[in-house]
């Protein structure tokens, strides 16, 4: 047990509100947790040393008005959270859905939240339980059956030096409904932030999901996104990771009904001494579901990327189609990638493929660009960036795609110069 975890437990037990039941459960579980050391596979390449000796300091109300970076052309209902509360609100709650802040939930809504909280998130996530114990604000979204919501919802966590933030998002998409949610996080201030989201997709529901973990420098982040995907439901998730002292994202998809599919695209772009760790687990518990997961990263300087992609195909999950691909490009000799695709297959009639590569720039492609008068440095930028640009251009929301393209290109160019 680390000093920090003891404090988390104490703090969780001290909180006395309508979520106390959930908190108590979490703190009881945390009391039995063995603090992860590097011998444990889940944290093998991502040391928790920066967390161990921290003191728990929950962010108080933030005095300054903090807003998320604007996404040009995006017409969304947007909330930013700083200091564990809403610091900025833009647009209107889209018509047709229920949108509730935990802090403003009435009794009936509190009951719905309590019923859903922790139902999608597997209990083994240490920081997920920390979020259970300490969460101070959250969002509950309920989309009724067969309702198509065109306006995306954007939820932004802004890391601040005022203290640690623990944000929770619960989304219940009923049968045949459709919605798009953008979760993003920014900031470089010394802080420890968890951001846990849980999604229930009922039959034939569709979710267009985004998670951009753009924390940098001293802003530590351990976040997670969990999905339960029912019959014929469709999930697309686009993930972007920058690195900080410690940045980790866990993604879990569990199929609960047949003929559902999930398409996950992840991009990470790491500079300096940054660390980003992406763990994904896809549980094919039922037959006839399809997963396609592509993760691509560019790692420069002394940065380190960790990718662990697990696809678990249960004995009954016949006719599963699953593809997992991780490609990496190292820009320096000191850059490190630890990549591990894991396929665990117990069914015999499935089609699965996985691969992980560390790519190099193709000499032929570089030569081709040079023969057209393009400078070597510009050609290298085009080729290296082209590698992840492919995934960005597949993003369904054009405004988000343009924004990312611009932002990631800028970051990439600044990496090249160093």
């Amino acid at each position, binding site marked *: 047990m680390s000093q920090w975890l003891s404090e988390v437990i104490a703090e969780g037990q001290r909180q006395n509100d309508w979520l106390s039941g959930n908190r108590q459960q979490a703190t009881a579980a945390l009391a039995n947790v063995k603090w992860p050391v590097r011998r444990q596979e889940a944290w093998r390449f991502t040391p928790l040393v920066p967390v161990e000796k921290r003191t728990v300091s929950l962010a108080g109300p933030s005095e300054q008005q903090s807003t998320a970076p604007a996404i040009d052309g995006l017409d969304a209902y947007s909330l930013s959270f700083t200091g564990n509360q809403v610091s900025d609100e833009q647009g209107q709650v889209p018509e047709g859905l229920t949108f509730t802040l935990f802090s403003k939930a009435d009794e009936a809504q509190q009951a719905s939240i309590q019923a859903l909280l922790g139902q999608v998130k597997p209990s083994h996530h240490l920081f997920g339980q920390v979020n259970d114990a300490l969460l101070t604000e959250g969002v509950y979204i309920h989309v009724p059956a067969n309702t198509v919501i065109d306006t995306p919802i954007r939820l932004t966590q802004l890391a601040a030096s005022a203290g640690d933030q623990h944000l929770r998002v619960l989304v219940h998409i009923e049968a045949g409904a459709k919605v798009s949610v953008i979760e993003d996080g920014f900031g470089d201030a010394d802080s420890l932030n968890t951001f846990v989201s849980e999604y229930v997709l009922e039959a034939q529901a569709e979710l267009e999901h985004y998670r951009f973990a753009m924390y940098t420098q001293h802003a530590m982040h351990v976040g997670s996104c969990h999905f339960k995907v029912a019959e014929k439901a469709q999930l697309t998730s686009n993930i972007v990771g920058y690195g900080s002292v410690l940045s980790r994202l866990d993604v879990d998809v569990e199929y609960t009904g047949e003929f559902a599919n999930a398409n996950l695209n992840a991009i990470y772009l790491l500079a300096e001494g940054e660390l980003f760790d992406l763990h994904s687990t896809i549980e094919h518990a039922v037959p006839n579901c399809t997963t396609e997961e592509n993760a691509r990263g560019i790692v420069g300087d002394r940065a380190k990327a960790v990718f662990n992609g697990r696809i678990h195909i249960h004995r009954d999950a016949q006719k599963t189609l699953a593809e997992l691909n991780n490609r990496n490009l190292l820009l320096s000799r000191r850059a490190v990638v630890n990549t591990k695709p894991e396929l665990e297959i117990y069914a015999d009639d499935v089609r699965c493929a996985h691969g992980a590569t560390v790519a190099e720039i193709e000499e032929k492609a570089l*030569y081709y*660009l*040079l*023969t*057209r*008068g393009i*400078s070597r440095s510009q050609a290298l930028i085009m080729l290296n960036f082209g*590698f992840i*640009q492919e995934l960005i251009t597949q993003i369904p929301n054009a405004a988000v795609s343009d924004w990312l393209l611009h932002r990631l290109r800028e970051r990439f160019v600044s990496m090249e110069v160093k």
Partner: protein
Amino acid sequence: MLSINNLHASVEEKQIIKGLNLEIKPGEVHAIMGPNGAGKSTLGYVLSGRDGYEVNDGSATLNGKDLLELEVEERAREGLFLAFQYPVEIPGVSNMEFLKESVNALREHRGEEPLTAAEFLKKAKAACKQVQLPLDFLKRGVNEGFSGGEKKRNEIMQMILLEPSLCILDESDSGLDVDALQVVADGVNSQRDGERSFIVVTHYQRLLDYIKPDFVHILADGKIVKSGDASLALEVEKSGYAFLGKAYEESEA
């Protein structure tokens, strides 16, 4: 325009070009024919400066500039253009972005303002039409998923946009049906303005029915062994490379 003297070049220490001389004046079209392994493609790579192609002796100047001293991209900026036999696929870099970067790199070299997105788009669309490629090819990855013929037409489109002073067409006819061949030839012929020069490297005479050469050279074992006018190509078509001796006939087979 282009002046090659006693050029010797090797790849991985194997001598491929063995004393090649070639003089090209503005506006001329020179065809280079020859059996497989004669060094036809190597010549294009050496002149464009590809890594691994080492010049051991001789010289090559373009408009008075020593080509061999220049980097690959500098040669392109001085007006050299190589249309590839096998154009490279680059997924993730759009054709549009690629073309715009190259056009503007050349403009910058000439001291001209870069084209705006709108100006470039107009030019690109016109060039696209000229080589009969659908406009959505501009949005696709460079050569990504293009058929052999589409790749060749994309090369010609680049040539039209980049307005080089010397174009080397490396087997631009290979793998093309007659219609595609016509499109490629029309594209090339439209660029013949009395100033621009061409080296047409080809294995078959067929392309030369469409692009009329002023001179035809036979390249064998790294040297030009015979030069003549267009009738030389017809002669090769009729009787093969027999006049080169038995060894070449075998290498052909």
